[in-house]
């Protein structure tokens, strides 16, 4: 009741008295949390190292500079592997995500009681595990190399594409579906004529976006042995070859910029 009780001289405030106290209480709680966190951080920090940080950082930079550009020659093959890993992984993941999304969407699921929960669980499970962890597991299972990377990327992409796709299937205009059903169309024809046209732009957009993300993720999968440019990065880090690390960073940065440019171009062309 923010309007004051005196009818002749009406007062107005955005919040009630109680609401104002709550807001001040909220700020106070935030301050307390900040102080407590600061204490925790201090306990676990060795301040001698922190004091040293600017000098160490400068030292690292000086070792990285100038980049050893002749090392570039060793990077083309791993970079190609990385791009393939991202692209094939995205395709594989998307191919598996599409049927899952149709099973998970409330309006297209063939069985709400059994298949829908199963599909939702697979989607959540895939999303809850990072590509790097998938890669760690897969390197242990099928051995190091690019195949482990492809499958890791694919498994993570299932959840991403599956979730976004099933949400956009649930948001379609049902009257269009009703109209196609009224013509006597079968289940597959219904999907082809009433549902696919409605979700296609969103689907293309999310697949290209996932490819873009996967390019970035695949550059680090090599750290755990899943092939690609990350393997080179790990090798250089282990041998403290900082001038090579800076070259690798430059290549990764350039790749990501190009991928971003390509994906925005393609998205605009298709939608």
């Amino acid at each position, binding site marked *: 009741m923010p309007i004051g009780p005196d009818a002749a001289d009406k007062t107005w405030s955005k919040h009630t008295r109680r609401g104002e106290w709550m807001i001040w209480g909220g700020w106070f709680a935030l301050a307390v949390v900040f102080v407590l966190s600061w204490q925790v951080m201090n306990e676990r920090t060795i301040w001698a190292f922190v004091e040293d940080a600017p000098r160490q950082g400068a030292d690292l930079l000086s070792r990285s500079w100038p980049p050893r550009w002749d090392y570039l020659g060793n990077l083309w093959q791993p970079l190609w592997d990385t791009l393939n890993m991202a692209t094939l992984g995205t395709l594989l993941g998307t191919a598996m995500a599409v049927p899952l999304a149709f099973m998970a969407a409330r309006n297209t699921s063939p069985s709400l009681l059994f298949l829908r929960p199963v599909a939702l669980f697979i989607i959540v499970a895939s999303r809850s595990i990072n590509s790097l962890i998938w890669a760690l597991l897969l390197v242990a299972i099928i051995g190091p190399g690019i195949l482990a990377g492809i499958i890791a990327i694919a498994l993570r992409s299932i959840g991403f594409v599956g979730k976004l796709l099933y949400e956009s299937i649930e948001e379609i205009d049902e009257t269009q579906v009703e109209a196609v059903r009224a*013509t*006597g169309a079968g289940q597959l024809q219904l999907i082809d004529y009433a549902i696919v*046209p*409605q979700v296609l732009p969103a689907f293309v957009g999310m697949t290209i976006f996932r490819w873009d993300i996967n390019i970035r993720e695949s550059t680090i999968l090599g750290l755990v042995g899943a092939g690609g440019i990350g393997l080179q990065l790990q090798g250089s880090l282990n041998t403290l070859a900082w001038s090579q690390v800076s070259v690798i960073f430059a290549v990764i940065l350039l790749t990501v910029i190009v991928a971003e440019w390509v994906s925005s171009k393609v998205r605009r062309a298709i939608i």
Partner: protein
Amino acid sequence: MLEVDSLEKRYKTGDMALRGVSFTVAKGQVVGLIGPSGAGKSSLIRCINRLVEPTGGAIRLNGLDLTKLSGGNLRQARRRIGMIFQEYALVERLTVMENVLSGRLGYVPFWRSFFRRFPQADVDKAFQLLDRVGLQDHVDKRADALSGGQRQRVGIARALEQDPELLLVDEPTASLDPKTSRQIMRLICEVCRERDLPAIINIHDVVLAQMFVDRIIGLRAGAVVFDGPPTDLTDTVLTEIYGEEDWHAMRKTREEDAADESETKAFEAERLAELV
């Protein structure tokens, strides 16, 4: 011929949408279904092609009981019942031709429809119908590029592409301006007469219904309260269907609305002219 025999529909919420509705529609007869919102008009026509499941009674189309069908038989029955919708219900991102050809989905196998390779006879028929509804120049446009009246014409062509034995029409003019409404109603009634096709048209606009249909059925609270020719639709009957209202005042308001609309259009045209 369509026979509806003591049709009942109870929704899961317990609402009785239809309480024993019975009537028959002869070949070539165009029936206007009027009644207040929530009277069960939409439920009734959706029960006929089983987009809504009836909970009692029978519906016979040329002798076949539609309420007993399931699976493939139901789909075969549906393909002989054309339906036209209030908001057109075209697939917005498909072309006009694809929308019209989707009327053949019940007849062609999946692979043909998937690769858009419809039999030449179906394509010929589609061209012919697009010609009939006046859209021969818009064949390859996407449905979302058309105006409201044009979209409803595509809807009509899609329904006729099915070679229907019955046409169900749900508020065909509710989203259209008065002039286009008349054109669309005229077109629907003309094609029905050309083909000797029975039709049930849900319609809010009583005046429009009286202008075009052969027979009017009035529905109130899920029951038939009037069934007769449009000329018998007196103020007393309208009051029985819709409740107390000054019917002449309402008609006057309609005329005023139309006048307002034309004024608004003139004003906007003027404003646009100034901008240019």
